[in-house]
């Protein structure tokens, strides 16, 4: 800035005491002349003002852009942590209950011995997605049947029944693995909800849940 100021003063100094108004006027014409005559070596005060104005404009646009974008994110009502208590006393072995949690279907199933055995017989290394995807466990927990089923109650199985491909609800106890089969694009899951074939990339997700008693589960 100092350098610029010096320059302006130097340009105005060719006449004797021109007075402040005349000086400003001359500087203006000089500046115009300098940009027109390819004198690009020295940035002018006008350049500085252009950049400063532009920068303020960009900051202002960014400040107003965020509320405009963020209003589309889930609102306070949607974010309010929803918990659902599920009475599981009526669910016999081989039966499922589907409850709606956060707008999504969550299956609570008491698996048969055969289903448990077939899930346990799988070698983790054959799985496409070898991570448990269980919100109750660390992110890197391996996708063993024990990590997928309820802790200490391997018959009980709680899962968000949404295909990890494009969000359809797979059909239960269907497909070659007798687990879940997605009718939309043909993804096949085993009896522990792990992806085995088809376009889905991940095992179906397991939500946070706990047994509040032997007859009741709290999801969320």
């Amino acid at each position, binding site marked *: 800035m100092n350098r610029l100021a010096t320059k302006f003063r130097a340009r105005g100094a060719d006449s004797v005491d021109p007075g402040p108004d005349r000086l400003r006027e001359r500087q203006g014409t000089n500046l115009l002349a300098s940009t027109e005559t390819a004198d690009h070596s020295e940035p002018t005060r006008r350049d500085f003002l252009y950049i400063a104005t532009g920068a303020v404009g960009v900051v202002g646009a960014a400040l107003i852009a965020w509320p405009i974008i963020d209003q589309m*994110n*889930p609102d306070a009502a949607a974010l309010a942590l929803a918990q659902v208590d599920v009475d599981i006393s009526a669910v016999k072995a081989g039966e499922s209950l*589907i409850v709606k949690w*956060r707008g999504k*279907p969550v299956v609570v199933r008491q698996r048969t011995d055969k289903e448990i055995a077939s899930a346990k017989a799988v070698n983790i290394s054959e799985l496409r997605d070898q991570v448990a995807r269980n919100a109750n466990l660390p992110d890197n927990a391996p996708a063993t049947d024990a990590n997928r089923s309820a802790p200490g109650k391997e018959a009980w199985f709680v899962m968000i029944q949404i295909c990890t491909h494009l969000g359809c609800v797979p059909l239960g106890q269907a497909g070659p693995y007798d687990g879940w089969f997605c009718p939309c*694009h043909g993804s096949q899951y085993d009896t522990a909800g792990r992806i085995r074939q088809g376009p*889905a990339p991940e095992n179906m997700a397991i939500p946070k849940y706990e047994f509040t008693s032997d007859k009741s589960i709290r999801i969320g």
Partner: protein
Amino acid sequence: MSGTSTYQPKNPVAKWFEARLPILGFAHSSFVAYPTPRNLNYWWNFGAILTFMLVAQIVTGIILAMHYTPNADLAMNSVESIMRDVNYGWLLRYLHSNGASLFFFAVYVHILRGMYYGSYKEPREVLWILGLIIFLLMIMTAFMGYVLPWGQMSFWGATVITNLFTAIPLVGNSITTWLWGGFSVDNPTLNRFFSLHYLLPFMIAGVVGLHIWALHIPGNGNPTGVDVKSSQDTVPFHPYYTIKDVFGLSVFLILFAWLVFYVPNYLGEPDNYIAANPLQTPAHIVPEWYLLPFYAILRAIPNKLIGVIALFSAIAVVAFVPWLDTSRVRSATFRPIYRQFFWIFVAVGLGLGYLGSQPPEGGYVIAARILTVYYFAHFLIVLPLVGLLERPKPLPSSITEAVLARNAAKA
């Protein structure tokens, strides 16, 4: 626009107005005196037909919005009340829903016309890309409109399509949640889709304006692909092509009327009359017919991310056609090899459409994979190679010569 404006208003009010805003002269040079090649065939009707359809969709859509309620609990009932209670509501809704189908039918003919006659070639590349932008906006608009009745197909179509974004690494889930306004497709999603469905047609109208502007700079192509060389090669747009367009549009409207009055639900899915149920996906979900080829490409690929990339690439690759086609001859009339590949491409597109409507099992998946590979090969291998290897037939020296030669052959 390039047409020489011969507009000389005689009416003093028109003179006064023209001196202040020369819009009458602009309209005159664009749509009356506009010099148009004398040999355009009926495939050139579809620009006018599409303009008509856009206006028809906007008019019926604005009326439907007066009766529709964008709320997850009320949407389906409001659509049913449009069908049963609102005066002529059934007509307006059937015009709008079948109008969308015919809009896409016309746009596919229009795009294929461009591919056959090389309409995308220099100097019309920007015109071509603007057209593709219109097509993309149309897909978005149609998709969001299909969600509004909030039936089973609406809900699950919205779920599947918004889930495409979860394929994006790292930020995919956040983007999808942002699109939904929740943790699944729900009332906030319906609300914003309604807002955007109302907005996008006006954006389409804006890009259509640019599309027509970009068309009027070089002027229309024509079936010979030979440039206009003298005023002998052209006729004024009015009355020659206004009449031809009105005739073509009338024939098109017969098809439209048949759909609306005789088989109004033929192109729809019966499942969409079942109210949306977030806990149950219909056994067989399919998009509307006009998106089936792209849906088949998505399902052909057994990997989520690559499938989604292929889906978007299938549309994006069309934008590069002006540079992928290496031939210096525009019209397929004079390109014996390309002409055959063009029709194979059309057959592949129809085949993909059929496969998209079938369940994703066994032979259908294998066939869809083969056709998907061919679809991309057409653009990335066939277009560049045929242009280099093919020996085109001799071109007529002018449009007039081609027309006169054809008339002589007929006589």
